[in-house]
């Protein structure tokens, strides 16, 4: 039986795995499995599938790209002590197939994530544009955490635009929006004053203001002198 789904794939690849000695490979693999066990513990078992790859592992998150990003970041942090990992994130089509007890997943979702993980340098996380869009859909605004990190062409001559995490991205975006708010306030209030001044040449509004707040009149006098 086969079933289709669209999900977020976190491909965790052990860097330079093939070039290591067998004992080191076994050690790194055991370490990776421990890391995956820890980082997937907080995720609902109904929402995640862990897959095996020869030089790493992939975790498919069915509903939540935010959880996928968090998982990848936690895995890289947890692995910082001696496990050279790279992470590739993608959101795409997948297919579950295989007899009961020996199921597996195929699909573009995995292929692109694997290619991105292969491209990423050690301890680095990179995500595809599809993942960034899925993140924006699930949590609008969170996509600002992923900033452009370049383009590359994989072995199948397929071009990928990749995005890397930027911790300051959200803060920068908040600052930009705050600045825009100030600009809007100044613009609207300024426009109000301008309109009034233009349409009432004797400035009754200013007179009314001076009458109500005498210190405004004194301020105007001082400015004139």
């Amino acid at each position: 039986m086969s079933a289709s789904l669209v999900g977020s794939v976190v491909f965790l690849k052990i860097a330079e795995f093939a070039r290591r000695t067998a004992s080191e490979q076994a050690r790194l693999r055991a370490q990776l499995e421990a890391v995956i066990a820890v980082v997937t513990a907080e995720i609902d078992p109904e929402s995640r599938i862990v897959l095996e790859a020869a030089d790493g592992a992939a975790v498919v998150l069915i509903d939540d790209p935010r959880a996928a990003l968090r998982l990848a970041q936690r895995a890289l942090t947890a692995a910082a002590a001696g496990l050279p990992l790279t992470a590739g994130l993608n959101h795409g089509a997948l297919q579950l197939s295989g007899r009961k007890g020996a199921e597996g997943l195929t699909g573009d979702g995995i292929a692109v994530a694997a290619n991105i993980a292969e491209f990423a340098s050690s301890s680095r996380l990179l995500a595809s544009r599809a993942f960034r869009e899925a993140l924006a859909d699930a949590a609008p605004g969170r996509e600002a955490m992923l900033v452009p990190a370049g383009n590359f062409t994989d072995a199948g001559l397929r071009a990928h635009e990749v995005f890397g995490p930027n911790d300051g991205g959200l803060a920068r975006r908040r600052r930009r929006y705050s600045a825009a708010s100030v600009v809007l306030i100044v613009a609207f209030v300024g426009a109000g004053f301008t309109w009034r001044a233009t349409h009432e040449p004797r400035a009754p509004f200013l007179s009314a203001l001076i009458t109500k707040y005498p210190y405004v009149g004194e301020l105007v006098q001082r400015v004139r002198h």
Partner: protein
Amino acid sequence: MAKKTTKIGRYRILDELGRGAMGIVYKAEDPNLDRLVALKTIILPEDAEEHGEYRKRFFMEAKAAGKLNHPNIVTTFDCGEHEGMAYLAMELLEGIDLRTRMTKQGVTALEAVEIARQVAEGLGYAHERGVVHRDVKPGNIMLNGGGKAKIMDFGLARMRMADHKTSTGMVLGTPRYMSPEQISGQPVDQRSDIFSLGIVLYEMLTGTRLFSGENIEQVQHSITQTDHLPPTRVVPGLPAMLDFVVARALKKDPTVRYQDAYELAADLETCLAELRGQEVTTEPSGDKSRTVKMEAGRDKASDAPPARAIAIDTRLPISRLIDSTAAVKRIKNASSEELTRLPRRVGLLRRVARDAAVRRLFVVAVFAGFAGFYIALV
């Protein structure tokens, strides 16, 4: 009736040990040293030009093999030519070859790893001296009663063909045990022997044939394209590290294979320690299945492809170590639309509703607008 050979060179023939494609192997006596030897004869081509070339190569390879003095390599004592055939006088071993042993008795995991380790040591020694075997296979590994493995026929695969033939891409060796580069007719080095030893190790551990086919094209395809199943999948209970060792020895790309037979021997030594540890752990309690199961579940090499080789239609198996049955069940039970929703473009309304920064900006804009309106008109 053919005349029975009684003497070759100075060697007195005592018995016939076997026949092969290249010639006959005799048990012989060296009267000068009063020593028993295995005398391997090689029929030289009749064509004069070919004969000269072949003869030259034979003596060159025999000299190179004669320099190899290692406990895991059958020693070559002498070489010569007698009535149109070349011969090699080699150390006579009491025992059987690995092929016969595998067919008749089978090999335990501990023995398999020990044999492979010894062969790797022997190959490492030869490789250091620039000699590549080119035909590592069970039939070329002799086992004596004391558990010692010795590699036979160093350089003989190369003697079967003349230089000009090999340079045009003719393949030497036994197809089932050839490396991808060897069966494709490309130049080979020590890494090719490592691949062949990887096949021998795999077959000893699992008791199955790794690469087979009805003709050489099928075998070639199998060697160059087919990935093997990890040994622990075939024989549960083997140490997981053997999966990694075999996988590395059997890499199709020689650049990511073991580069050195000594390195392989060192890894096999670690596997041996683990296997001996298993024996010690399991023997006193007599409860072998329990220990084996624990070992089998731990960090196995995956039969899944590496990241570089993953294409759209490549299938990754679900991990055996982290349970994913709940999610699999959910996917199987879900309606087709439920889990296949693609991300939608985020419109202004959704942004205002769900993005705090945009919402704040929107509220500020509305209030500032009202303030401006009030200032202008009221």
